[in-house]
């Protein structure tokens, strides 16, 4: 083999095999360097120098914002899981008003930007019904938004259930309830868990939009800080990094679930 080809090979994934650790690390490093170089080049064109001195000064506020983002996201996740499941079940209801209500809900929420929903909900519904607390309003809006996506994840995985599996359960004498408990439920968990985990990362990112109704979460905190320090770039770089700290581990867990529950794979 000629040496050129050997070098070229360093950057190629082997066929039908997982990438060896060394090769993976090398190439990942390469990509990171690439990203940094592009970023740095752009910055030097703009002639910007960084100072992250403000972090010391505003550390407490940043931490508070970070914690609020985590709280918002966690509470919203729990509520949206419950609501999303209900809606997914409701979409299969034989009672038509319920079915259509759930259907319309999913279509409207998924068909409009979150920012529109936040404004409409907060200023019209929120005001009319006296929901003044911004944290509660934020959690409600976010939950209602995410639940529509979660309902779709659940619905999709139900539709992808193999009919023969249900028929097999029938043929063995399982009652409906037993089929639900021993076949449908475990298979749906396996199908939805990776996607639902991934959705949690979306909840975290989407919560940033609540800054527009002045929920002092991470993004809003950073906006306020940058407004006084004028260190816009530094603030947003830090903000992005903080979001990554939250979402990357979640993505990792989602991939783990995917592997763990992929019982269709061969060894």
């Amino acid at each position, binding site marked *: 083999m000629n040496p050129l080809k050997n070098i070229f090979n360093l950057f190629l994934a082997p066929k039908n095999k997982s990438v060896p650790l060394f090769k993976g690390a090398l190439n990942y490093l390469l990509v990171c360097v690439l990203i940094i170089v592009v970023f740095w080049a752009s910055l030097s064109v703009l002639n910007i120098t960084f100072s992250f001195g403000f972090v010391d000064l505003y550390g407490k506020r940043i931490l508070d914002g970070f914690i609020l983002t985590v709280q918002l996201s966690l509470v919203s996740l729990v509520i949206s899981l419950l609501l999303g499941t209900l809606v997914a079940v409701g979409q299969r209801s034989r009672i038509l008003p319920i079915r259509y209500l759930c259907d319309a809900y999913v279509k409207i929420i998924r068909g409009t930007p979150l920012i529109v929903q936040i404004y409409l909900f907060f200023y019209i519904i929120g005001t009319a019904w006296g929901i003044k607390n911004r944290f509660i309003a934020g959690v409600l809006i976010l939950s209602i938004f995410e639940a529509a996506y979660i309902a779709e994840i659940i619905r999709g995985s139900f539709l992808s259930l193999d009919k023969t*599996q249900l028929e*097999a359960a029938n*043929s*063995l*004498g399982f*009652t409906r309830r037993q089929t639900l408990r*021993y076949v449908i439920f475990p*298979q749906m968990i396996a199908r939805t868990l990776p996607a639902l985990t991934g959705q949690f990362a979306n909840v975290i990112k989407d919560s940033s939009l609540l800054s527009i109704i002045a929920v002092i979460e991470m993004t809003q905190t950073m906006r306020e800080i940058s407004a006084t320090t004028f260190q816009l770039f530094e603030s947003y770089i830090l903000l992005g990094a903080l979001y990554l700290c939250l979402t990357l581990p979640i993505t990792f867990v989602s991939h783990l679930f995917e592997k763990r529950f992929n019982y*269709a794979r*061969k060894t």
Partner: protein
Amino acid sequence: MHVRLEGIDMNFGEVAVLKQVSLSDRIDKLAIIGPSGGGKTTLLRIIGGLLVPSGGRLFLDEQEVDYAENKLPAYRAQLGYVFQQGGLFHHLSARKNIALPLQVVHGTSEEEALERAQELLNRFGLGSEGDKMPAQLSGGQQQRAAIARAIAASPKLVLLDEPTSALDPEYTNEVLDVINDLGETGIRFIIVTHEMGFARHACDKIAFLYDGMLLEYGSSSELFENPTSPELQRFLGKLLEWRI
């Protein structure tokens, strides 16, 4: 076991898929044969309680099958059913596939169910495959495990719907051998199959289903040697066409 079908009809919408299928006989090893779309699967599903007929009645050992929704699970639990493919639960190992119905439906203790499952796996040459998931087994192994599961609770009758037709030829025989062994050990079965050699030599009775009608019924030797209807003659003739 005595099986009696009384004028079974099945309509899907406007289409009559089974027309007045009647039969009354002692059945040990019955093969249902016939061209594609003739209604074989439909009839088997009706016998298995997986499908409610549009008309007619079914008796097993002179006991009428009640197709009421709440009676069916108990009825199905007395039978074994093997699907063409993919009948094993994807999310359970081969061993659990066999053990779970014993525990859930038949109230066997977990320990006993697992023991019984291992026994059956050994019997079907899958002794060391028990921990594998269905997707990790070959097609032939999957079908043998499915058969093991079907007979685990000592069913009165085992129904098999083309258990080998999704398999590569090399796996077909191993599965047919297993089914033949069932017959030898006194397990009664009804099999839908396109394997005419098996129908002829391993089964004692043959039902020929054509266009939703039971055109011929009789002992396997008789039916294969002297097919009376032109349809069966043609059907058998076609099969011989490509024989080596």
